[in-house]
C-alpha cells in the first residue's frame, strides 16, 4: 500500500509540475481569475471521471460484476503500467546519459508565455469586458489541466486497479502531489525549475516497471517467490539495470563517435 502511494505520488508529481508551468505562464500574461477558473473547472471534470470510474474498477475483481477473470484484469493492467513505466524509464536513462535534452521548466514557461502573448496580440483589437471571463486564459488553463490531469487519472486507475484496496492509496498519492505542487506554485509564483524531474521520472519509471512486471506476471500465472515482497526485488533489479545502462549508453555513443 505504501509503495502504491509513493509510486502514484512520484508519477503524479511530474505531471502536476508540467501543468503548473503552463497555468503560471497563462496566468502571468492574461490574469489569474479566468486561468484559475479554467484549471479548477478541469479538476472538477477529472474528479467526476474518477468518481465514476473508480467504484466501477473496484467492483470488477471484488464482486464479479463482469465475466472478466481477475487474472486477465491483472495482465491488462500490468501490461499498461509496464508500457507506461518502460517508456518513462527509457526516456529518463537517455536523458541521464545526455542523449536527449533534459526537460527545462523555465524554457517551457517562457515558450508558453510567448505563445499566449502572440494570441493576445492577435485578439487585442477585440473589445474586452474587465468583468467577463477571459476565454483564452480559461481555455488554455482548462486544456492543459485536463490533459495532464487525465494522465494523473490514468496513473491512479492503473495503480489502483492492481488489487483490492489499492485505489485509495493511489488516489491519496495523486492528491498529495497536486497539493504539494499547487502549494509551491502559489507560494513561489514561478515554475518549479528545481524539481529534479528526470530523477523523479527515473524513480517512478523503475517503480512502475516493477509493479507492471509483478501484475502482468501474476496475470500470466507466475507464482512470485515471497509474494508481494517480489515487488521490492523487482524494484532493486530494474534500478540496477537502469543505473548500469546510463554509463553504458554514454560509452556506446562515444564509441560510435570514435568509429566515425
Amino acid at each position: 500500500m505504501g509503495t502504491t502511494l509513493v509510486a502514484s505520488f512520484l508519477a503524479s508529481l511530474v505531471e502536476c509540475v508540467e501543468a503548473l508551468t503552463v497555468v503560471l505562464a497563462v496566468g502571468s500574461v492574461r490574469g489569474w481569475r479566468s486561468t484559475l477558473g479554467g484549471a479548477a473547472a478541469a479538476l472538477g471534470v477529472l474528479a467526476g471521471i474518477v468518481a465514476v470510474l473508480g467504484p466501477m474498477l473496484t467492483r470488477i475483481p471484488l464482486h464479479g460484476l463482469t465475466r472478466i477473470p481477475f487474472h486477465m484484469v491483472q495482465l491488462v493492467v500490468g501490461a499498461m503500467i509496464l508500457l507506461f513505466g518502460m517508456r518513462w524509464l527509457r526516456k529518463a536513462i537517455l536523458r541521464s546519459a545526455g542523449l536527449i535534452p533534459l526537460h527545462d521548466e523555465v524554457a517551457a514557461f517562457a515558450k508558453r508565455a510567448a505563445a499566449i502573448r502572440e494570441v493576445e496580440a492577435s485578439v487585442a483589437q477585440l473589445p474586452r469586458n474587465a468583468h467577463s471571463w477571459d476565454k483564452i486564459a480559461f481555455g488554455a488553463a482548462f486544456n492543459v489541466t485536463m490533459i495532464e490531469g487525465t494522465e494523473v487519472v490514468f496513473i491512479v486507475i492503473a495503480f489502483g486497479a492492481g488489487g483490492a484496496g489499492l485505489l485509495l492509496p493511489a488516489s491519496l498519492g495523486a492528491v498529495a502531489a497536486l497539493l504539494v505542487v499547487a502549494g509551491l506554485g502559489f507560494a513561489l509564483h514561478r515554475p518549479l525549475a528545481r524539481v529534479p524531474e528526470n530523477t523523479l521520472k527515473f524513480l517512478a519509471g523503475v517503480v512502475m516497471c516493477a509493479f507492471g512486471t509483478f501484475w502482468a506476471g501474476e496475470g500470466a500465472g507466475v507464482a512470485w517467490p515471497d509474494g508481494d515482497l517480489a515487488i521490492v526485488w523487482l524494484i532493486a533489479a530494474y534500478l540496477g539495470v537502469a543505473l548500469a545502462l546510463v554509463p553504458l549508453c554514454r560509452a556506446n555513443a562515444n564509441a560510435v563517435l570514435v568509429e566515425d
Partner: protein
Amino acid sequence: MRWIQSIARRIFGLFVDDGSFAVAILVWLGLAMAGVPRTAVGAQWAGAALFAGLAVILIENVLRFARRRMK
C-alpha cells in the same frame, strides 16, 4: 473537440513512444502468458525469465538509440 483529440493522442503517447519497443514488450508478455502455464520450470524461474526478457528489451532499445543518435 480538439482537446478531446489532443487528450486521446496524449493517452496513446503515454504507452507508445517507440513503436518497436512497445511491440517487443507486448510480444514478450504474450509469450509469457502462453508459455508459463505450459512450462514445468519452478515458479521463481518463470518470474525471473519474465523480468530478464523485459530487461533485455530495455537494454537493446536504449543502446540502439544511443548508437543511432550518434551516427
